[in-house]
């Protein structure tokens, strides 16, 4: 994403900054009054989240928008966080310089890929209102807070500080603010509601940042609050060096020019990922470069040759030079459980399925796709499902139709999974929302506006695969729901209606009320399993209640097995029946023989979880007669799960990263 910065750097000297801004306001995010306020909030929030992440602080962010002059469309935006604050000497750099913090060598997943950051907000504010932006900044080590107004010298492209002072910053409860930043700015902008709004942006941000606490006061004074649902900060992302497969000519030229390495092999091994000593030598040979050449002295033709070798167009002994894949630990996926938490705090629903694919590489860029699907009564059933797109935890709110992630959703025939979709193509309809997140070191957008991801076959396939897998989860859930509704009806029949028929007919005929057990067995004529997984707000536990009824004419014996989120750290509690661990996340009980008409109950609770983490328990059985409401256990699958578990255990001891998808896949396949 250095392209824009480059362009800007080149252009700056020639044109006045306001002219530059006017010309580029589209990709800077200030092209309409409605969008400007969203962009401003976005820049402020992105900065806060990034700063907190780097300082390992759990973010608390407050956004307030008020109307200063409704006729002239002047809004005031205040954004406050509990981040590390900015040291006094850096404030003007952060707020008043276009190209602060350029780090094109380091490649990693980061939020701040949009526009020119908070400087753009300061500039827009000044251009539309003539007013500077006020900043309060408190760092932990200082006693006092910096208060300063930042404007821009539009000819010199420099910040103008004014009214600088040091003050005491107190919280509402009169305690001293420990650290944080508050930015107040006025701008010509229009606040609107709907799919493209500040509200929606913050809502989406809170979904993918479940560790953040976000409060928003809208211009009507209404307070929206998205609480923190996990104390866990996103994993620290390591910067990685660029991989030869993903590099562009300009970047390579720059790297060579700035290199102080003495020889090519050192340059290649130290500035790129995936290049071994052997590979460095082979690259040089294929590019017809002497390994002792200084990179700084490379001619344009040499650099082009090197690039061609990178891309496999020049060969080493008849083959493209083999490179190692780039490391993928530079990515920070949100992870399934946290997507679940994020989604369930903003949308009330019964069913959520999520899926984090393992990291993959496209053109030397590591990437990872995550998806989530939430389904339930709270959402409108006759409208298109809501699509929540994210790139590196940044919500994408515009150009939905042109985005790769949307296309992946549209390519799936959702009808087979229980959603409506005209012709099996396009955005499906139904009471659902689909979340899709791309984490990547190099997100490719269709345009400078950075709102839609451009086509990439490998990324598309990954996203599509994730959708399909999620779809299967949805179908299973819906099938189960249907079955449960049927079972509920049967229970109503035998518990309420049948006794009423018996009683009424006896009354009319003036005879004794007959015994119902025979009729009940004939009506049900099945073994039925009822499972109820509920959140117990009092004990902060998930209560699971399983009942097995034998409504057949014969005695039956069974073992029941259930899945539970053992891996995610849940602890089984109050399991009075005991039973035993059958595999990681699989618990089993051998039940006593059930005579015709008898039932058995299993109760346990799961602690260490939060509301929405675990909403449905799958029940498997061992036994001859089919059980309505449970799945026959596939012993081979269980063996497979155990085998995988062993492998994982071994891998972990050897320091490998475990494959997050293994377990879900196996249970899903156990039908």
């Amino acid at each position, binding site marked *: 994403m250095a392209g824009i910065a480059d362009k800007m750097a080149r252009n700056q000297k020639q044109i006045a900054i306001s002219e530059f801004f006017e010309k580029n306001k589209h990709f800077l995010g200030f092209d309409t009054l409605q969008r400007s306020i969203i962009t401003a909030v976005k820049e402020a929030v992105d900065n806060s989240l990034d700063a907190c992440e780097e300082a390992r602080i759990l973010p608390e962010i407050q956004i307030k928008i008020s109307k200063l002059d409704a006729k002239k469309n002047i809004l005031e935006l205040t954004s406050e966080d509990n981040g590390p604050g900015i040291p006094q000497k850096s404030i003007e750099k952060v707020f008043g310089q276009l190209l602060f913090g350029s780090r094109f060598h380091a490649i990693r997943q980061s939020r701040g890929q949009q526009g020119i950051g908070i400087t753009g907000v300061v500039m827009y504010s000044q251009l539309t209102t003539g007013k500077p932006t006020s900043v309060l900044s408190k760092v932990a080590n200082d006693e006092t807070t910096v208060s300063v107004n930042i404007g821009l010298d539009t000819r010199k492209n420099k910040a103008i500080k004014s009214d600088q002072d040091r003050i005491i910053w107190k919280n509402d409860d009169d305690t001293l603010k420990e650290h944080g930043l508050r930015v107040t700015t006025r701008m010509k902008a229009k606040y609107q509601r709907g799919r493209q709004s500040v509200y929606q942006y913050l809502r989406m941000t809170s979904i993918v940042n479940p560790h953040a606490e976000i409060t928003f006061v809208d211009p009507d004074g209404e307070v929206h609050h998205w609480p923190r649902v996990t104390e866990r900060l996103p994993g620290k992302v390591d910067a990685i060096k660029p991989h030869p497969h993903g590099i562009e000519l300009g970047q390579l030229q720059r790297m060579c020019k700035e290199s102080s390495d003495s020889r090519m092999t050192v340059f290649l091994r130290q500035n790129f990922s995936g290049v071994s000593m052997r590979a460095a030598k082979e690259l040089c040979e294929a590019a017809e470069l002497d390994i002792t050449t200084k990179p700084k002295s490379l001619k344009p033709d040499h650099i082009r040759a090197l690039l061609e070798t990178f891309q496999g167009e020049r060969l080493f002994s008849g083959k493209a030079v083999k490179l190692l894949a780039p490391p993928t630990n530079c990515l920070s996926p949100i992870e399934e459980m946290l997507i679940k938490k994020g989604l369930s705090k903003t949308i009330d629903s019964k069913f959520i399925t999520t899926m984090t694919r393992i990291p993959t590489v496209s053109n030397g860029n590591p990437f990872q796709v995550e998806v989530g699907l939430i389904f339930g009564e709270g959402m409108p059933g006759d409208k298109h499902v809501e699509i929540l797109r994210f790139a590196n935890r940044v919500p994408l709110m515009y150009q939905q139709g042109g985005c790769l992630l949307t296309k992946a959703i549209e390519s799936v025939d959702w009808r087979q999974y229980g959603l409506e979709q005209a012709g099996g193509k396009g955005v499906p309809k139904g009471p659902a929302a689909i979340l899709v997140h791309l984490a990547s070191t190099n997100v490719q957008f269709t345009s400078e506006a950075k709102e839609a991801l451009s086509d990439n076959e490998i990324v598309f396939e990954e996203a599509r695969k994730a959708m399909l897998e999620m779809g299967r989860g949805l179908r299973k859930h819906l099938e189960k729901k249907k079955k449960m509704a049927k079972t509920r009806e049967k229970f109503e029949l035998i518990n309420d*209606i049948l006794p009423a028929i*018996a009683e*009424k007919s006896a009354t009319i*005929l003036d005879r004794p009320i007959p015994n119902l*057990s025979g009729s009940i067995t*004939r009506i049900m004529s099945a073994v039925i399993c009822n499972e109820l997984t509920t959140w117990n707000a009092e004990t902060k536990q998930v209560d699971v209640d399983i009942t097995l009824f034998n409504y057949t004419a014969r005695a039956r014996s069974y073992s029941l097995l259930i899945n539970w989120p053992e891996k995610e750290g849940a602890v089984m509690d109050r399991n009075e029946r005991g039973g035993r661990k059958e595999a990681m996340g699989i618990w089993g009980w051998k039940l006593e023989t059930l005579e015709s008409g008898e039932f058995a109950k299993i109760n346990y609770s799961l602690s260490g979880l939060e509301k929405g983490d675990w909403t449905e328990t799958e029940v498997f059985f061992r036994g001859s007669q089919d059980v309505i409401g449970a799945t026959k256990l596939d012993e081979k699958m269980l063996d497979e799960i155990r085998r995988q578990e062993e492998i994982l255990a071994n891998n972990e001891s050897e320091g490998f990263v475990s494959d997050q998808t293994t377990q879900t896949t196996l249970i899903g396949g156990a039908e």
Partner: protein
Amino acid sequence: MMARVNDAELTRERLHAVVEEMYDRIIKGEPPTMTLPVRTKNNIGFDKKLGVFKYGKKRSIRDATSLGSAKNLLRALHVVEFIEEMIDAGKSSTLREMYYISEGWGLGKFSNQNESNNLAEDLEVVTTCLREDFKLRPEEDGARMIGNVTVNELNRRGQWMRINARDDVGDSGYGVPYNVEIEKIQLVEHDVKFLMAIETGGMFDRLIENGFDEDYNCGLIHLKGQPARSTRRIIKRMNEEWDLPVVVFLDGDPWSFRIFASIAYGAIKTAHISEYLATPSASYLGITADDILAYDLPADDLSKKDIEALNAELSDPRFADGWWQDQINMMLEIGKKAEQQSLAKYGLDFVTDTYLPEKLGEMGLI
């Protein structure tokens, strides 16, 4: 055969048989059931002795293995109990009143009036009693009648009133009550040559305005669409007791064919009492498919539903004879249907001056 109206003991006995079926199944350790004739066109057949269409031998068993049918059985029990209470108390109620009374029946309450109407009919079919035996009245509108026909009707004060349907009535004619049985209506005398049953109010009024009943010496009966039981019953009585020919004048579309079938052959829903309601000698006057062509009547295209209905009629045993098959096939072929009032194309008097005389002449009635 039908139970005689007002035979309370027989009614009670037959209702108890329905309850016993359920009770005995429970005693045997089986789901309770209610057995009733299949009430579709696939289970009606011509009864040679009665000359009408009746239910055949096919039986369906409603058993309590699904929630829906179990609820239906429970409702049936509540209805039986309710009927017994009315018999004991000498009261009666409308079907609609019963629907509202069911509010107090807990799990056995009806969710809409259609359900309660159907269940009353079910019980009629199973017990071969009439709903009058059950003390249940319809709200359905009886027919209007005009012509030189005299009846005695027992009024609210328990006095017999003599009414001539030409001289003692206004323009809207004599209103036929819901109960036209002998204890309520006596047919006294008449001076008409035939009876004409008419589908639409517009045509009925046209014929009256034009003095058709007097010119041609006939009785006119307004059917009001699909005729109520009492309408069919009084036509049947006049036909039988006075030996009057009956002609039926309807729109020319598939639905009118069904109206005619219910008058002449018996309706599918009430095939258990066809011999009581149907008039086998009634004949179809028009509008026929022929008429649409012969009189070049303004016609509408058949809708998808019309075509479906016509096709269904082709396999309906009541339309099995050659003339009906020809008419239905012709209508499908020309793809058109016409209303009675389309005859007005040729002026207001065309129907009374030309069309009806021609048609009645063909039928040998004038």
